[in-house]
């Protein structure tokens, strides 16, 4: 109960404080037009308070008491003392400036305000920060930055005197404070000199301004609003994204451990971390590549690719184009290439290669499956219901999805026990069933019927288009082969024993090489298909009805309409979907972390980065892995920027 109340309170405080700050800032700038004196006073007070808060907060000046290390309400006055003084001084200066328009008076007010601040700081500055000025740097910096100020003033066609004052102010600050020897020979007089000159220069610059007229006020309003509206977002992006990203880049060229234990200094090691990322066999593992020739997938890949090329020749004869890869040859070709890359990736492992495999497989399969459901469901009865089933996994966390699949689908138990994972239960059942006569007849029969149907389709379309007939023939080989296997040894998860009986042989989906990676990908495919479906479904519905009607009248089949009209129309959307999924897949972390934590050759970049950086304290390697991930996504970023700049 206490937790619940604390939760609500912290939420209200967080949201309330943020909105109060923002609305307050807006109300402040609304005063520019309503009551400039009030605005000027408030702005001065805020700047003064912030200035003193920063100086006091960094323990540069003496307060009215010893500040406790952590905040306590009892010592509130110690925390507030200097900011309140700063607010009073700044507020008075601001109001005074807004009351006077004549240049000399304003200059006097500005310098006066600057001097008061300077004296306050000079007299309270802690002894260890007192200055002992060195003439050379002081003169050099002041002259140099004054010149820079004048130069900029000339370039921007501004008042040269104010430009020189601004430059001089910063030059003096750098030269007097930066060039001085701090705390060596504490010298209050020199400190006062340094502060007073700085205060006078800054104050004079402030006094050189004039009170804005109506146009000026409108300008202030517009400029300040642009910062108020865009500023917070930009601040968040800068602090949470840009600066950390740059820091990560720096960390990635530094060593993993400090030079000495306990120190904060890390040696620069150049590209060593990157080198180790790309040469470590953990990350690029080709040791199993030789096994590829024993893979049962490879012959199938060869078969489909050969069939695709053959069909392309046949189709080329038909259309008199030499080689034609569109239409019928495309499907076996895609299947062949898909199977080939599948065989390749199951035998090339390691963090980097796994990551590439994830991107290739999940992106293409999610998009393809999403397109399939979108097409199948289009215009169906209860379309929304069917679609929301497919869509639902999007609301489930990756952690939850991993647990669901691990326990409900992939669980593998000892062969002597009944299986509690659905996939293994089916697999083992299939193995037992197809080892009996009845099972062989039923399962084998089903595949034979499928093969027969495809062969009938082949014969019927032979006179029409030999290429399409060839496609049916190629596809028919698959069920024919499965039927052959069923009638022979049987299919499914079993091992024949010497006494003629069989023993269950469940698949270890999560841990068993070489296919475990693919089963982990299934989880992400399960989640992402819904996303692809929603967007592609909307795109399909947006294809102009006229095109489809016209095609129907010309006697086009459903398949022809889909491949020749719908798909070309939605190609840009397919591109967007694939890019979005690709970016998400590149960063895959939770699924691997929860199912295997990168063991059994399933490591991916994001999880490797997490383990290295946060578990093994190898921050250099961790940062390098993060940068590799970033490099993988960089092309998408560049493409996005290109698209945006092209727009107008």
């Amino acid at each position, binding site marked *: 109960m206490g937790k619940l109340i604390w939760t609500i309170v912290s939420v209200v405080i967080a949201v309330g404080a943020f909105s109060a700050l923002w609305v307050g800032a*807006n109300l402040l700038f609304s005063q520019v037009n309503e009551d400039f004196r009030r605005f000027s006073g408030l702005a001065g007070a805020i700047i003064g308070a912030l200035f003193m808060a920063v100086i006091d907060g960094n323990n540069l000046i003496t307060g009215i008491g010893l500040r406790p290390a952590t905040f306590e309400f009892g010592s509130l006055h110690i925390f507030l003392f200097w900011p309140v003084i700063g607010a009073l001084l700044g507020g008075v200066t601001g109001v005074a400036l807004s009351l006077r328009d004549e240049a000399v008076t304003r200059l006097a007010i500005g310098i006066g305000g600057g001097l008061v601040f300077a004296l306050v700081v000079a007299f309270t500055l802690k002894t260890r920060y007192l200055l002992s000025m060195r003439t050379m740097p002081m003169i050099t910096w002041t002259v140099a930055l004054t010149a820079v100020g004048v130069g900029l003033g000339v370039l921007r066609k501004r008042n040269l005197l104010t430009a020189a004052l601004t430059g001089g102010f910063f030059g003096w600050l750098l030269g007097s404070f930066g060039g001085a020897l701090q705390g060596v020979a504490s010298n209050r007089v020199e400190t006062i000199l340094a502060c007073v000159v700085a205060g006078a220069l800054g104050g004079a610059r402030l006094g050189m301004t004039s009170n804005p007229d109506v146009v000026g006020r409108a300008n202030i309003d517009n400029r300040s609003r642009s910062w108020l509206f865009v500023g917070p977002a930009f601040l968040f992006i800068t602090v949470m994204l840009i600066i950390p990203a740059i820091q990560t880049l720096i960390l990635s060229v530094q060593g993993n451990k400090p030079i000495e234990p306990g120190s904060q200094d890390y040696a620069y090691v150049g590209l060593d971390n990157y080198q180790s990322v790309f040469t470590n066999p953990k990350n690029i593992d080709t040791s199993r590549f030789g096994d590829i020739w024993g893979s049962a997938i490879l012959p199938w890949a060869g078969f489909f690719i050969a069939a695709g090329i053959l069909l392309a020749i046949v189709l080329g004869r038909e259309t008199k184009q030499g080689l034609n890869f569109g239409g019928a040859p495309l499907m076996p070709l895609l299947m062949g290439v898909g199977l080939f890359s599948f065989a390749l990736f199951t035998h090339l492992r390691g963090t980097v290669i796994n990551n590439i495999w994830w991107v290739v497989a999940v992106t293409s399969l999610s998009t393809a499956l999403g397109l399939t459901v979108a097409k199948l469901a289009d215009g169906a009865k209860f379309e929304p219901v069917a679609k929301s089933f497919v869509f639902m996994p999007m609301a*489930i*966390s990756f952690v939850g999805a991993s647990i669901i699949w691990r326990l409900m689908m992939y669980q593998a138990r000892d062969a002597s026990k009944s299986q509690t994972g659905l996939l293994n239960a089916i697999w083992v059942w299939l193995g037992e069933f197809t080892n009996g006569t009845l099972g062989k007849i039923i399962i084998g029969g089903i595949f034979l019927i499928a093969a027969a149907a495809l062969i009938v389709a082949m014969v019927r379309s032979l006179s029409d288009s030999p290429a399409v007939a060839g496609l049916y023939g190629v596809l028919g080989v698959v069920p024919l082969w499965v039927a052959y296997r069923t009638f022979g040894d049987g299919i499914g998860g079993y091992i024949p024993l010497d006494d003629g009986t069989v023993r269950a042989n469940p698949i270890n989906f999560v841990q068993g090489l070489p296919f475990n990676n693919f089963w982990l990908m299934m989880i992400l495919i399960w989640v992402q298909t819904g996303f692809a479906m929603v967007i592609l479904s909307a795109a399909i519905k947006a294809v102009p009805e006229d095109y489809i009607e016209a095609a129907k009248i010309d006697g086009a089949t459903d398949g022809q309409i889909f491949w020749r009209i719908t798909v070309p129309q939605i190609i840009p959307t397919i591109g967007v979907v694939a890019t979005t999924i690709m970016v998400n897949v590149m960063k895959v972390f939770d699924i691997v972390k929860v199912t295997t934590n990168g063991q059994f050759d399933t490591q991916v970049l994001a999880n490797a980065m997490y383990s290295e950086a946060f578990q093994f304290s190898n921050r250099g390697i961790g940062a390098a892995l993060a940068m590799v991930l970033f490099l993988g996504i960089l092309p998408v970023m560049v493409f996005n920027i290109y698209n945006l700049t092209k727009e107008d």
Partner: protein
Amino acid sequence: MAASVTTAGTTSTGAKIYSTLSRVPMWAMAVLWLLPTFGLFVNSLRPRDAQRNSGWWTLSPDNVGTRFTLDNYETVLGAGTVNSIGDSLLNSAAIAIPATIIPIAVAAFAAYGFAWIDFRGRKWMFIAVVSFLAIPLQVALIPLLRMYINGAHFTLPIVDKTLTLVPAWGLNGQAISVWLTHTGFAMPFAIFLLHNYIVSLPKDIFESARIDGADHFTIFWRLVLPLSVPVLAAFALFQFLWTWNDYLIAVTMLGSAGGDALPTTVAIANLAGDFGKNEHLLTAGAFVQAFIPLVVFFSLQRFFVKGLLAGSVKG
């Protein structure tokens, strides 16, 4: 297959059968996609022994002599027990709600600013912001965690004095570190999505409001916010699902501190970590974790789909 093509307009029996049959793959896929979650739900209601010894699809737990029970939920939600994720539900809410509201506010301001306030460098700033859409949050994690632990310090060049911008408050292990991180990472997408909508509002209303003397704050507050409710709802839904389901940021910022602020994702992932022992509780835990986003999702699905379309299909 080629034989069963019917010409448009005819509604013969064959065509009816064909159109019904053609829906079989769709329903097969829909059911296939529902199956794992359904299995989780069924198993979460079965006692430990039933879960361990028989598949969830056997439905009835009778074959091991037990009935459906809520025991797993009682253990998982019960306060004080070792495997309770009841507290972490509150933690998840304490993370997800502010991490949804704050980014909406910040991004709405910025989207309005980019759409309707004329200032120098607007276009390039917007492109810069949107180009961060794809940036992986991994590139920021290490320095961010360091900042939450050590504070932020800036060494002035030349003067060589280190100024403290953010003191070492020890924010890691506290929900605020997760709010801030989520807010930062939500910005590019939020601004992109809201900007697309706000920029398409009719120009006339802004011009007439300006003529009536309204400043940007008033226009934003009185006109733009009320008109943008659909897109704000869409983004809120995205952000809520994302923050509720997030694991990486939570485990990085909170996990290392080992405090009691862990959200449900981290809690059930930890539960999944000790293999076998608590698997029967994991089902109930995972279902509780998924229940709230599923309810939110199905009640606001309309907004979600609209938001998805607006976010990915530019126009």
